[in-house]
């Protein structure tokens, strides 16, 4: 009937169920955004599946802090971690040494861990073999003689207790202007000669592929990074057979075996799931169900997930932001607080917001990734919609406002029949800004395991595979264009015709 009733039609797809989380799994494993972590988590997933558990692998989460928070919140039950990461990063500065001390510490959080599975994926400092040979650099100490080299380390390494700060001190390295870089990009930069030195993982398949030299840690700076599985203590009751199976993996995968598995994913192009299944078949005689990959089906799924995140967050944002904008426009004393708060939300860095949201959301939802992403997108959508609603309503000429009052119309009729239609173009522009922004922002969902186009983008960066990146990046760009186009159409439907006419008779 009225113009505003048409808006829900446009976002009606928000009500389409996501079709992603069909039934809630009996357990979840997490993994970090690099191949080895994904393979180890796939091993957990296959073993759990083999024990008849309904398992979900929330893959490629953006960093240690994210996984740790998710594990404490109970949104994942288990993930592969490294002893060094726990002693040097999670429990940095608490002076924890050795497996036993670590176990005691974990127990305080209701967590347990397996014994080391064999891999010692410590940090190494690497550079191109050819350059290292030319400059005669064999050890980290040798770097002292070459202060002009460009050093870039992963963001995580820059912040770790055993990271750049401690390393530079231990080796008295003179290099200035050392900064952080996304780890997956560091290889590319190293190969292209943009940077000369970076941190690597010892079992990294790319060391061979890119012909890198591992500089010798001649002063024994780096602690040991033994891979273990960290899990919530109650998993032992819920899935005793799985926990036993994991403990049987202790000392079963050495550095060479791990490097080979990494290489089969990154150099041969097999899926992590396949490589993990092959390992279990060979080492344990377990046949696993490997998820078939299909580009078309994957893109369809990313699209559905992406649309769903955008539609749900946007619908919620409109339901909240338009009324907030109306209140701000009508009650002057609320205007600054409302606009101020939504403005501040906008300044919170997106990745920080995603991490901050894990704990509070875990009280409402068992799901990890999707709800955090939706809430973050919702929060970011508020500002453009609130601000445009406010500006649109405040921009109505006082003559028109008075005419409506003088006619004897009650306030809500004036709002519905006069003020909102007059502000509709402005409000719609705000919704459009929020939507286009959301389509882009939603790719960050890949960082937190929410799916969508971000999943292939982050996976592609990790695997250094442009093809995979494009599977996410191209549809995301196309979607943004389609959304833009849909709003042109929406403007014809929603903005009253009288406002679209050129003025003058």
């Amino acid at each position, binding site marked *: 009937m009225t113009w505003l009733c048409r808006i829900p039609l446009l976002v009606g797809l928000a009500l389409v169920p996501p079709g992603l989380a069909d039934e809630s799994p009996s357990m979840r494993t997490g993994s970090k955004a690099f191949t080895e972590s994904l393979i180890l988590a796939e091993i957990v997933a296959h073993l759990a599946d083999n024990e008849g558990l309904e398992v979900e692998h929330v893959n490629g989460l953006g960093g240690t802090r994210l996984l740790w928070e998710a594990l404490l919140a109970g949104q994942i039950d288990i993930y592969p971690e490294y002893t060094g990461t726990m002693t040097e990063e999670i429990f940095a500065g608490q002076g924890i040494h050795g497996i036993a001390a670590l176990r005691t510490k974990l127990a305080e959080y209701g967590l347990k861990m397996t014994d080391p599975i064999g891999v010692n994926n410590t940090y190494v400092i690497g550079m191109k073999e050819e350059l290292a040979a030319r400059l005669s650099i064999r050890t980290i100490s040798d770097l002292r003689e070459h202060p002009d080299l460009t050093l870039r380390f992963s963001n995580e390494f820059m912040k770790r207790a055993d990271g750049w700060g401690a390393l530079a001190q231990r080796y008295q390295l003179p290099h200035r202007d050392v900064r952080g870089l996304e780890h997956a990009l560091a290889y590319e930069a190293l190969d292209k000669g943009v940077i000369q030195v970076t941190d690597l993982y010892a079992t990294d398949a790319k060391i061979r592929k890119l012909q890198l030299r591992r500089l010798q840690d001649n002063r024994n700076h780096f602690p040991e990074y033994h891979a273990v599985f960290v899990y919530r203590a109650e998993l032992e009751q819920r899935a005793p057979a799985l926990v036993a199976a994991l403990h049987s993996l202790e000392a079963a995968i050495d550095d060479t075996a791990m490097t080979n598995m990494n290489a089969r994913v990154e150099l041969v192009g097999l899926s992590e799931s396949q490589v993990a299944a092959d390992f279990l078949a060979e080492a344990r005689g377990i046949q696993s169900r490997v998820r078939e990959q299909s580009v078309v089906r994957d893109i369809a799924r990313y699209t559905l997930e992406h649309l769903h995140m955008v539609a749900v967050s946007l619908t919620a944002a409109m339901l909240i932001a338009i009324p907030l904008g109306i209140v701000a426009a009508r009650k002057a004393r609320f205007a600054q607080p409302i606009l101020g708060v939504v403005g501040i939300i906008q300044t919170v860095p997106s990745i920080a917001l995603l991490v901050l949201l894990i704990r509070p959301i875990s009280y409402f939802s068992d799901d990890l990734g999707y709800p955090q992403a939706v809430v973050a997108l919702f929060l970011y959508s508020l500002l453009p919609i609130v601000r445009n609603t406010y500006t649109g309503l405040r921009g109505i000429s006082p*003559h*028109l406002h*008075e*005419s*409506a*009052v*003088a*006619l*004897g*119309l*009650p306030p809500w*009729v004036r709002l519905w*029949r*006069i003020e909102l*239609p*007059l502000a*509709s173009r402005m409000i719609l522009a705000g919704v459009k800004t929020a939507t286009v922004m959301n389509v882009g922002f939603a790719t960050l969902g890949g960082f937190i395991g929410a799916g969508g186009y971000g999943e292939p983008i982050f996976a592609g960066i990790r695997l250094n595979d442009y093809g995979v990146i494009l599977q996410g990046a191209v549809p995301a760009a196309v979607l943004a264009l389609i959304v833009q186009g849909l709003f042109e159409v929406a403007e014809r439907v929603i903005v*009253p*015709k*009288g*406002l679209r*006419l*050129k*003025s*003058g*008779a």
Partner: protein
Amino acid sequence: MFDLRSISKRYDATEAVRAIDLVVEPEKTTVLIGPSGCGKSTLLRLMNGLIRPDAGSVQFEGETLLPENAMQLRRKMGYVIQDGGLFPHLTGRDNAALVARHLGWDAKRITARLDELIELTHFPADGLDRYPAQLSGGQRQRVSLMRALMLDPDVLLMDEPLGALDPMIRSNLQAELRTIYRALGKTVVMVTHDLGEAGFFGDTIVLMREGRIVQVGPFGDLLNSPAEAFVTEFVNAQRGLLGVSEEAAQ
């Protein structure tokens, strides 16, 4: 019809209306006139409660105008402003029928009433489905008048209704508007700054200056028995303008 009792309104430093008493006779046209800033528009807007007085009260048909009853009473007062105040997103028809629809009139009754008003205002029937942006200035004022008359109000409040029109259209519309006023026999309160227009319409002229009423009476009184020197000054100033333009024409 209206009984204003020692009504005052101030905006920050300026006193727009100072303790005015005024009785508006029913079925007569009362014109508020005076130089810019004399408070004539403010006084009109106090009458329909668009602004609240700081002191004093407005009686309308024996009832005191209050925020609680303002909405009901306004439906008995048609209000037309200089540029029409039409809502650009609604057609002429929707503008005119807005309140009637809100009050639940059925389509037949609305059409019948609009037909009467079209005839009264000489508005082209096909113009009702145009948007304000598609109408001429004069047509917009006719729609605005139809909107004001839709509920058959007891009084029409007109704030320089012809002020934004060019002179030719204006003089045509003046004649038509007076015919309409006479045909309706309604109480009209009209604001203008043009003495000729005041004389043309007004049964009673209210001359204002700096928030006060200087003189109330028929047009002839202003010319023949001015209450104070300002009245003559004001009359002569307007005549002077006329005189200058007459000289220029010769």
